[in-house]
């Protein structure tokens, strides 16, 4: 009924706005946003073109179109496979660990008491810390000569634990920093999800004396699934592109131990001035994130439509 009224009111809108201007209005309003879009798309297309060129900043006269050679070269390049392997390992570790920890914390804070709410607010602080600065904080805490964490592990008999500067523990250290920054993100999304679940199934289960583990695996988890998927895809997309934490902590080192995609591309560009190779590396990363983000956006829009009551 309100729809009918609505369409009537739109028909009797003041004549002052001419029909043409009325139709142009949305375009005029979104013109600046369109400009930003174009400003993003131009460098993006440029990067795609660069990735098909032999283009080194220090050897400009060698510049030329070489087709997919940059990509083909990757196939036989152990550095590329190292980058791919490290990026995927880092992503898998951070997402899985943050998901488990975030879910655990969300379950602990599930009842909306004043204390639980206060804790969930305090847990926002790491998330709001700049990741690059967070890396510096952990760098100070893991300093071999005075770092508090180095001291604490030495109390447990682990001496000379070198954290990010030892190839065997570097990955562990940056994953720990990533968890410190981003676990609260997953916790917050899942807590919002948990608290929005309908109560009836849980009340019915409690009345029937259903064991807690059954309730968790058969009721809580399935109902929470959309939130878990959203949160993980989100983290997946950010994690595979991680730059700040790793660059601030070790600049990809020690050696090439933490050469994830964006760090490698950054060094390729600024240290080796190899624009073509850097662009090709980023295009591959883009391809991966684009597939993931298409899944994500579809899923997210479905949730959004549901939240807006199929508006």
């Amino acid at each position, binding site marked *: 009924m309100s729809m009918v009224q609505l369409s009537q009111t739109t028909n009797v809108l003041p004549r002052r706005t001419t029909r043409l201007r009325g139709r142009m209005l949305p375009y005029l309003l979104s013109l600046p946003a369109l400009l930003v879009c174009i400003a993003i798309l131009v*460098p*993006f297309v440029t990067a795609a073109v660069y990735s098909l060129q032999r283009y080194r900043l220090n050897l400009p006269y060698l510049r030329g179109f070489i087709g997919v050679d940059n990509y083909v070269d990757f196939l036989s390049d152990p550095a590329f496979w190292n980058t791919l392997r490290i990026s995927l390992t880092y992503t898998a570790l951070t997402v899985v660990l943050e998901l488990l920890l975030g879910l655990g914390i969300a379950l602990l*804070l599930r009842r909306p008491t004043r204390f639980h709410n206060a804790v969930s607010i*305090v847990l926002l602080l790491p998330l709001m810390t700049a990741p690059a600065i967070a890396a*510096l904080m952990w760098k*100070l805490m893991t300093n071999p000569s005075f770092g508090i964490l180095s001291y604490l592990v030495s109390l447990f008999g682990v001496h000379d634990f070198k954290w990010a500067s030892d190839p065997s523990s570097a990955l562990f250290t940056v994953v720990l920093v990533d968890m410190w920054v981003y676990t609260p*993100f997953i916790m917050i*999304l899942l807590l919002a999800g948990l608290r929005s679940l309908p109560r009836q199934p849980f009340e019915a289960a409690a009345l029937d004396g259903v064991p807690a583990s059954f309730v968790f695996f058969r009721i809580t988890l399935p109902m929470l699934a959309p939130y878990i998927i959203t949160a993980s895809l989100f983290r997946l997309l950010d994690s595979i592109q991680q730059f700040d934490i790793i660059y601030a902590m070790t600049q990809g080192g020690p050696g090439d131990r933490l050469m994830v995609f964006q760090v490698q591309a950054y060094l390729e560009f600024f240290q080796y001035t190899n624009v073509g190779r850097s662009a090709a590396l980023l295009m591959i990363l883009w391809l991966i994130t684009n597939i993931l983000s298409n899944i994500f956006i579809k899923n997210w829009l479905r949730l959004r439509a549901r939240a807006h009551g199929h508006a």
Partner: protein
Amino acid sequence: MDHSSLAGRIFRGIALALVLVFFMFPIVWIFLMSFQTNEQILRIPPHILFEPTLANYQALISGQLRTTAGNLEISFIRNLMNSFALSSAAVVLALLLGVPAAYAFARFKFRLGETIAFTLLSFRFAPPLLVLLPLSLYYQQLGLNDTYFGIVWVYQLIALPLILWIVRGYFEDISPDIEHAYRLAGHSWREAFTRIAVPLAGPGIAAAGLLSFIFCWNNFVFALILASADKQPVTVGALAFVTASGIQYGQIAAAIVLSVTPTLLLALYAQRYLVEGLSLGAVKG
């Protein structure tokens, strides 16, 4: 469903305590460290009780650091000012560009609107270097490299999508009937927009603005590539600072405290809105 058994409550209590320690300890520890002298920091075992000193902050503010290698001039306060200036300018610009566009997306169904919204959303997830590296070459040709304007413009990549999507949601939640009634009374769409729609979406606009400020402030890679020392924000400045030789650890800690305090205070202030903003695709350093 109630975990009221004693063992359950003890377990939950311990687990919560561990969670709080893991997430709060680094902040507390760095805060304490920023009030310590180098000698106090280097003590083994570390002391929790110490005589606090403001020397680290004084050195940062005066810009003169006494190091083993002699006097070192730093411009950390300038970095702090840069962070304020760049983030505020970026958010103001994004609000001016984004709020009208968000209104258009919410009120008019037109194909271009959806295309823009999706392009911005999908580039929210694209690797930032993919856009930044070619852009830095363009900037060199255009003379925009290492200018405040150039950096603020790039910050739109962070702020604009956030504002568009959050504010659009708020506009969609407001019934258009009020605006229609207002316009039937003879007012123009612009009056309906500024006097009805924007005030009603006010909380959403404020939340989006605060969140984008935090994310611009926390950004690292944009300024790392586009800004030279005198235009760098704290995130990049603090890193350069750490690698400088002979810096005292307490001064690094004080620099960290100064860099994170503004965003943490804003986050506490705006925490009501954070959940919604975050779920809309915000987190990006």
